[in-house]
């Protein structure tokens, strides 16, 4: 049985790009972690000293300052990331090689990985922290030290990667360009809809003057939106289906070229 050294199994000798490239996802993940550490440190330093009274000038300096920065920077990030994906889209999707397609599937999976990191911080870490703060300190504004980070910081951040992964799949992968994947849309749209649901939440708290019972029906919108994360299961199965097809092609081509098959 012959072994072909340094073979490019799908016959693209000119395409020496790695199929799995961790560089950009690693930078994005480290960047996200840095932002989360910054948020947590900022809260620790200025929540009790400058975050108790929204009419206090220091509140305006620290918390409204952070909010304004977020309201400018994060939409700019949206525009930047989404525009880049859109304007660099591949219009010749149907002529790409299976190897290139496989590379793009890995890019999509890594995009979803970054999305999952961002979602975890919003849905788990900072969300329950909201309970610890609001059940302790009376809220006198919608822009509390907890909300400035959770609602206007971490949630818009994960929207960047959620919508980005949907755009990436639609503009880079033939099967997603041909047919819209409902699991992918659900996995992106559900968590995204948590953002507009904030409006209802804040309106309810202001209008009904509710106490901070976390399980109050007012919060159930967040719960239902959160359930759609389960659609990631369907999405990963779909990606696996597509990748199995490509890997099978890879195996068959490698076999025809005489490459040793892994046991």
């Amino acid at each position, binding site marked *: 049985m012959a072994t072909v050294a340094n073979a490019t*199994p799908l016959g693209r000798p000119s395409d020496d790009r790695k199929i799995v490239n961790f560089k950009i996802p690693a930078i994005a993940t480290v960047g996200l972690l840095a932002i989360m550490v910054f948020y947590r440190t900022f809260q620790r330093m200025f929540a009790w000293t400058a975050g108790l009274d929204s009419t206090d000038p220091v509140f305006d300096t620290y918390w409204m300052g952070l909010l304004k920065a977020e309201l400018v920077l994060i939409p700019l990030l949206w525009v930047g990331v989404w525009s880049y994906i859109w304007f660099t889209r591949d219009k010749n999707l149907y002529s790409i090689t299976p190897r290139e397609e496989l590379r793009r599937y890995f890019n999509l999976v890594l995009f*979803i990985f970054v999305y*999952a990191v961002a979602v975890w911080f919003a849905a788990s*870490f900072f969300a*329950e922290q909201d309970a*610890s703060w609001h059940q302790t300190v009376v809220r006198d504004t919608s822009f509390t030290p907890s909300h400035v980070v959770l609602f206007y910081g971490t949630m818009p951040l994960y929207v960047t990667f959620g919508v980005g992964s949907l755009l990436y799949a639609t503009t880079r992968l033939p099967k997603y360009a041909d047919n*819209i994947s409902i699991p992918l849309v659900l996995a992106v749209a559900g968590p995204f809809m948590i953002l507009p649901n904030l409006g209802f939440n804040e309106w309810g708290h202001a209008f009904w003057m509710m106490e901070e019972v976390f399980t109050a029906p007012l919060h159930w919108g*967040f719960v239902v939106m959160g359930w759609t*994360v389960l659609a990631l299961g369907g999405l990963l199965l779909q990606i696996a289906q597509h990748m*199995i097809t490509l890997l099978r092609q890879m195996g068959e081509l490698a076999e025809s070229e005489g490459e040793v098959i892994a046991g």
Partner: protein
Amino acid sequence: MRDNPGQTIYGIKWSKEGAKLSRTFDIIVAVILLLAVAGATHLHFMLLAGDWDFWVDWKDREFWVTLTPIVAIMFPAALQYMFWKYFRLPIAATLAIVGLMIGEWLNRYYGFHLWSYFPMSMVWPAMLLPSALALDAILLLTGNFLLTAIFGGMAFSLLFYPSNWFMLAPYRLPVQIMDYLASVGDVMGYSFTRTATPEYLRMIERGTLRTFGGHSATVSAFFSGFVCILTYMVWWGFGVLFSRVITVPNTFKKLLGLVPKAAGTSTQQGGKDTKLTTSTVGGV
């Protein structure tokens, strides 16, 4: 190649590169699943049962014993369908609950303790791992959804209360405060003021478990088990629904400005996708 049929696994002839890519894919997906399942389960749990689990003086009330298993079994049930049906992995409940525990312990420490200055002894999260292990074990042993719902759902609930007894017991010791009998948990609840939650005073007084547990705790656990059976069935259905791969034609394709497909030019578009079943999913 033909001399070694073992190199064809689950109907796929693996190239060296393909096998390596498959393993890489597995690892990335495992981390994604842990993060996503942990985040979603935590969000779901904290907003449906959270209040009774945040504070030690709320624990041991009838709501805690009743609601916690009912809410906690939902994600494990849905995930069990996906993991068992497609991967024959009986770990879904444990994965969901481990994710929930990680998130809760991190937050109780960094949020409740370090940020809001509650003692950890007042805010520790409930223990659900024995329940999750039992649910997974019953699915593994029976391989049957209905039996898992009936026996697993009941076990999930009945194991919950005794699993927490070891941590809860010290808070149930009676103490005398200004000539009134209270529990240590009650005294802590009154001592550490939660300014924005006056409502809790009324809600916790409604329960009867505060009279040092007794038969009502057991009744609540059995009632919870009954609801857990039904909840498990419904959420198994959610698992079926959310793992379905549904697509609709992209009517916005013109916007993408794609060059139309030429007949016979695409290598990857011609064939149908591999149907993902337990026999083909293998290492991918």
